[in-house]
């Protein structure tokens, strides 16, 4: 073979990143890009006997129980989208926040926070918002980029707001209290959400065309009409109560809650007399399509992490960090930088798998709180969802957005929100008590 192992892990790390970038621009599907790089490095480094590693990782990845909530959330979103529920909900929301420039975007963020409390997985929420909120905001004349940014950034909050699968996996990996992680994430998550809201309001205040208020005639309706319109939000609210209730009353596990969501939405469409075979068929096909995209991207990244770890990538990163002779806080800073860079190319499961075993012991030995670092990690993953070229939030949205919205357009919409995320991350780094105050770990 080509004996890639001769070049050493450092050069190989750069070559990997380089080849990913090169393959990305040829227009090869992302899923194949990461998978192909994993395959070539497995072949070149270890020889043909190592190829089963790739397929084994594909098998293990699709067999992961927590992934079940993705198709269910997508199915829920597709059905909602095909029924009139979403449109009615947004019409009502507009009536009540109509006078405020950007009001509907702010309401979308509240919906996002609500969804975040229902699920721990990110893909589902962005797809739900992408199907539910984005077309409606566009319909109401909102600026396209502001709308896209709101949906992606808001939808990403699902992994910060408890229950959060990122924090659970971090807690299991680092062996720290998950309840303390959940408590610690509340203020930083609120901080992020407030920054988003402030940004939307300021942009729309400066330029009301970005989030136009409803026309006067639409707002000047009688109280009776308003009350009648309110009826249309009864069903969505019931569905939300049904899903949230099933988690918090101990009826369903976090993953099963997604199933409750599908059942709730199907019942709503029956009540509205909208359920039809054709609609169900279309929703299911869309679910298959969206899941195919999302899961196969994860598959490629997962294979890449397996190969890189086998090559000794974990040891390499560790030695780089331990070889630094700098103040502890700069080590944290460098770890954050590594996470940001990895976030450009990988999804969070891969990053957690790769870096947590290396970072957490170092953090503990430096005397920092692993709870605080867990929050920094999950905030950093918020950035990774949005950052190009590998931004899962953008991919999720692209999978359901109207076709004229290109991936490039989505990424261009996201950078102001990435800046907000970086500022929030900096704040929590500088003032650990933002995270540690609530669990009483100051």
């Amino acid at each position, binding site marked *: 073979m080509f004996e890639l192992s001769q070049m050493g892990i450092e050069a190989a790390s750069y070559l990997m990143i380089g080849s990913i970038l090169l393959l990305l621009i040829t227009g090869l599907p992302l899923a194949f890009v990461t998978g192909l790089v994993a395959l070539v490095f497995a072949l070149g480094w270890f020889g043909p006997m190592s190829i*089963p590693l790739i397929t*084994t990782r594909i098998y*293990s990845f699709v067999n992961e129980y927590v992934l079940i909530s993705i198709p269910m959330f997508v199915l829920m979103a597709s059905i909602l989208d095909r029924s009139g529920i979403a449109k009615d909900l947004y019409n009502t929301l507009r009536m009540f926040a109509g006078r405020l420039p950007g009001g509907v975007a702010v309401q979308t963020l509240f919906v996002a926070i609500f969804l975040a409390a229902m699920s721990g997985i990110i893909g589902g929420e962005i797809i739900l918002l992408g199907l539910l909120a984005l077309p409606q905001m566009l319909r109401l004349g909102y600026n396209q980029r502001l709308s896209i940014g709101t949906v992606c950034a808001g939808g990403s909050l699902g992994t910060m707001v408890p229950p959060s699968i990122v924090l*659970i996996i971090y807690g299991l990996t680092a*062996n720290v209290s*998950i*309840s303390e992680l959940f408590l610690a994430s509340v203020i930083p998550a609120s901080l992020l959400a407030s920054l988003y809201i402030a940004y939307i309001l300021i942009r729309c205040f400066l330029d009301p065309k970005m989030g136009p208020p409803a026309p006067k005639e639409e707002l000047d309706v009688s109280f009776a009409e308003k009350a009648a319109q309110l009826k249309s939000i009864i069903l969505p609210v019931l569905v939300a109560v049904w899903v949230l209730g099933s988690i918090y009353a101990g009826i369903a*596990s976090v993953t099963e809650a997604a199933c409750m969501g599908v059942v709730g939405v199907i019942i709503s469409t029956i009540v509205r007399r909208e359920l039809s075979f054709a609609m169900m068929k279309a929703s299911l096909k869309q679910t298959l399509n969206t899941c195919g995209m999302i899961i196969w991207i994860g598959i490629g990244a997962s294979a890449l992490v397996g190969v890189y*770890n086998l090559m000794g990538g974990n040891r390499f990163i560790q030695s780089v960090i331990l070889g630094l002779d700098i103040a502890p806080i700069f080590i944290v800073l460098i770890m954050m930088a590594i996470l940001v860079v990895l976030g450009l190319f990988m999804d969070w499961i891969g990053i957690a798998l790769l870096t947590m075993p290396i970072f957490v012991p170092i953090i503990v030995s430096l005397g920092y709180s692993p709870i605080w670092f867990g929050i920094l990690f999950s905030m950093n993953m918020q950035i990774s969802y949005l950052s190009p070229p590998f931004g899962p939030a953008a991919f999720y949205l692209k999978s359901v957005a109207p076709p004229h919205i290109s991936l490039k357009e989505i990424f261009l919409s996201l950078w102001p929100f990435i800046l907000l995320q970086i500022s929030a991350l900096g704040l929590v780094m500088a003032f650990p008590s933002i995270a540690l105050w609530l669990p009483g770990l100051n």
Partner: protein
Amino acid sequence: ADAKYKWTFQSGAQAGDSFFAIQQEWAKRVGVMSQGEIDIDLVPVNSVVAYNETLDAVGVGILQGHIADPSYFSGKDPAFAMLGNLVGAWSSPYQMFGFMEYGGGKEVYNQLVNPYGLQFIGAASTGVESFVSKTPIRSVEDFKGIKMRAPEGMVQEVFASINAAPVNLPGSEVYTALDKGVIDAADYSVFSTNQAQGLHKFAKYPLFPGFHSMPTLAVSMNKNIWDGLSPSLKEVLSVSVREFGYDMVQRLEMLDKQAVVEAKKDSSIEIINWPEEERAKFRGIAQKQWKKWAERSPMAKEVYTKVSAYLVSQDLLAK
């Protein structure tokens, strides 16, 4: 500084688990004891392949070895389940070590894994697992109707046979499911881990010392590589693994006791210690399940015969 043998071993432990650090110390010690000839990179669970795929990976040589609970491979042969976690058989890890080292356990395990291309070196253990529960469970009868998370395999069947309602849940779901009350109790990990992850904050009736489950951790490596090693390196590996087993058990016991002291400071937590007669009753029920499993494959039968003979010889089982 270049080692003659550079191996990647994958552990079944999470990076932050207390016992992962102990395992890494073992890997380092092998380097020193072999005078730098062997360099083991011990990576945490799922780093290279998923936890239940390491058997195949070591067999074909993708990984050179693993530290794994044999129960993960029960789907390949039920004998793995019996060697991995023979519910109720052991009341202390030292009894299990005795079987593995001197009672024919090593031979039978090798008979099982050699065809898969693996050589078994020795066993370690995390000790007897504690049990987390939201309601007080003081006897076998109290298990009736308890919705509990139980891991794959024999443990689940034993609990089903005492009328508990075992729920299938992955480890990552246990925390919220227990917190919100989807389940009442869970077979999860050792006391110190349960305490560290905060489970006792809302599941206030842990059963300790445990009795229901004591997973074996098997240290094995690729057979081709093993066969090519010099006798002295083989001895380095065997002796170091034997010592590693004791090291791990002793240090985890200490951690458990520290965690118990910490838990006792919280007066709302009640640590329940089952009386001997209830433990015996549970063991009796578990033993019935072994026989059922023994019928499922020739190797399982072999394991059953060997373990029973050993237990009888040690006066741990009535003939």
